[in-house]
């Protein structure tokens, strides 16, 4: 009689995520996996391989490209999709701005973060997606901590936190009416550290910007470091510096801060996180600081 497998907490989180991904495949006609090129969505892709190989993914990868991405991340995205042999759909915020006559965000550090909601909703409509899988985690932010794993959105993509469906056991209710769609978060119960531990255990390749490298940065008044890119308009008073940095999250180059670090391996990064005293969003996001309810408001309006 073979000995039975003993499951540790990562095995359990993995089993939960695989179960959720297969529920999406079983319950929806036209699902999509929203892929940002960040570590969370890269982990999702690995989980999708576990859920569906040797078959193909029952959904395309969809990237909402703000035009402010790091080139290393875009190259990684294209390579990954090609290696997987899966369909990649890219829709650009730039096109939405032009088609809808929207105003480019101004300011010193222009963020297209709010505008990408339009592109996302247009893309959902264009392809008739009834479920969009995302890599959001409940430990990221307080409003996210309240969201279900299957989160129903109305035809305007809006989230109503007061009318969330009870989510019982591990029974996921994907029954929706025409026009509605569901956002699905298979790694809801993972923390930042869990994702890194999983990436290490599974030996998952990541874009190079997650590891320590030298980069020209501008020092913000808060002390945060922002990569110097073509999207920033710098002036003479800006303090520029070259530092050894890495990125803890990968979002727009205009609103994702770098952290000083010489961690060049996964083990070193995990060590860094264990020591870190500042939360992931706090260390790296400039856009949540706008107001206390920043995330809740954006989610209500259809943001992921």
């Amino acid at each position, binding site marked *: 009689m073979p000995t039975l*497998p003993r499951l540790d907490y990562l095995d359990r989180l993995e089993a939960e995520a695989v179960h959720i991904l297969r529920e999406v495949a079983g319950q929806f006609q036209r699902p999509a996996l929203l892929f940002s090129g960040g570590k969370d969505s890269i982990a999702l892709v690995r989980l999708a391989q576990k859920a569906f190989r040797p*078959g193909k993914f029952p959904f395309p990868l969809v990237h909402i490209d703000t035009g402010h991405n790091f080139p290393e991340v875009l190259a990684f995205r294209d390579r990954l999709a090609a290696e997987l042999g899966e369909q990649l759909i890219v829709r650009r915020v730039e096109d939405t701005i032009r088609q809808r006559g929207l105003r480019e965000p101004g300011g010193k550090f222009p963020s297209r973060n709010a505008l990408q909601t339009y592109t996302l909703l247009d893309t959902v409509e264009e392809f008739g997606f009834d479920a969009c899988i995302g890599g959001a985690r409940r430990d990221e932010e307080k409003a996210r901590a309240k969201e279900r794993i299957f989160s129903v959105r109305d035809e305007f993509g809006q989230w109503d936190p007061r009318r969330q469906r009870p989510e019982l056991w591990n029974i996921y209710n994907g029954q929706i009416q025409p026009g509605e769609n569901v956002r699905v978060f298979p790694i809801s119960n993972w923390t930042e550290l869990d994702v890194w531990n999983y990436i290490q255990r599974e030996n998952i390749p990541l874009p190079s910007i997650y590891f320590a490298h030298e980069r020209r940065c501008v020092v913000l008044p808060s002390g945060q470091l922002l990569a110097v890119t073509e999207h920033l308009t710098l002036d003479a008073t800006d303090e520029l510096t070259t530092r050894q940095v890495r990125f803890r999250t990968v979002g727009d180059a205009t609103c994702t801060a770098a952290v000083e670090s010489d961690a060049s391996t996964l083990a070193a990064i995990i060590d860094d996180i264990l020591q870190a005293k500042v939360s992931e969003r706090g260390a790296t996001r400039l856009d949540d600081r706008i107001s206390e309810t920043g995330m809740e408001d954006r989610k209500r309006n259809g943001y992921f």
Partner: protein
Amino acid sequence: MDLLRFITCGSVDDGKSTLIGRLLYDSDAVSLDVLAALEEQNRTSAAGTVDLALLTDGLRAEREQGITIDVAHKYFTTPRRKFIITDTPGHVQYTRNMVTGASNADLAIVLVDARQGVVEQTRRHTIVAALLGIRRFVLAVNKIDLVGYSEQVFRDIVADYAAVAAQLGLRQVVSIPLSALNGDNVVKPSANLPWYQGPNLLEHLETVTVATEATTDAARFQVQYVIRPQTAELPDYRGYAGRIQSGVYRPGDRVLVLPAGIETTLAAIEIDQQAVPAAVAPQGVVLRLADDVDVSRGDTIVPLAQAPVPTRELEATLCWMAEQPLRPGRKLLVQHHTAKTRAVVQAIVARTNIQTLEQQPAAEARLNDIVRVRLKTARPLAADTYQQNRTTGAFILLDEQTGATLAAGLIEQTAPAEPEVEL
């Protein structure tokens, strides 16, 4: 490292959110920027100290009203264990969210305000948690500082609660006096409670036995999705993807496909495209069958010797979660994990009085009621009773039109007993 999922419940203002805030804060799970944001909020709102409840109350309405509306999930890890906390609302009108939290938890912390003692919501939440199969309870007697750290007050509340626990057959209750606000006995022992010799809360959470899936349970598996690559290399591959819900599966097992009742052999079990010698709950697997049989999503594959009898008639306990009352004759959808079928409510047998736990006759079920019903389904379900199996004994009811989740269902009997005959 293992994982403990627990809920906190109790009446409004008993300090649940503060207790979680304290656990996170004292176990260093709160980062500096979150703490700074918190202190900023407190400066702009109330007076003085850090309000730890703000760590969990994430929605604007919750912060404005100072109450928890929806389930919040929090995560922390100590060197000994990883924890997932579900903070559930105390208000009566949000009991359905309490049910949601309890359905996924291994342990419940029931908070009681030392000044109030055991109140209606304490009973209700304990009943709901017990009903949903939670067996490990912590009675946290909070705000013990406000009763002068009185041992007598603590003893009286423990005795009151013991009566509730006894009525429900709960044998694993650990009572801990604490103050979430001051941190007494949450993560650190308290000098204010010299008469208390037991573990502090975190110590207990770190050492309590975690429920693991028993390998002796009947083996259960439902098909979620059929993998058919139909490629040149794998033209005939058919794999049945799903999660092992309970028990153990091994290649070579003689199995039944239900509800059709087709017998075949388990040719292989694959995980990540590798054949494995055995798989256990809750692993996600792909099952390969020896024969080319018709199997689709919602079907159950079980070892022959352990197979349940598929049934179209269920007697079940419901936690009714909709505003609109449930009356006999109502048609709805049953979602039994991956199986979905129409059903009709044939009768409401009784409603549980949560004061006395008595079963009383009822014509309808209202929001937050716990009722016993008889259901008839369109297609047979390979179900167990909730007592036998916390997974395959559970289902949800959906509104046919809107798809809204209307009720949590716990199967009591898979084929209703024969009506009693007058002799």
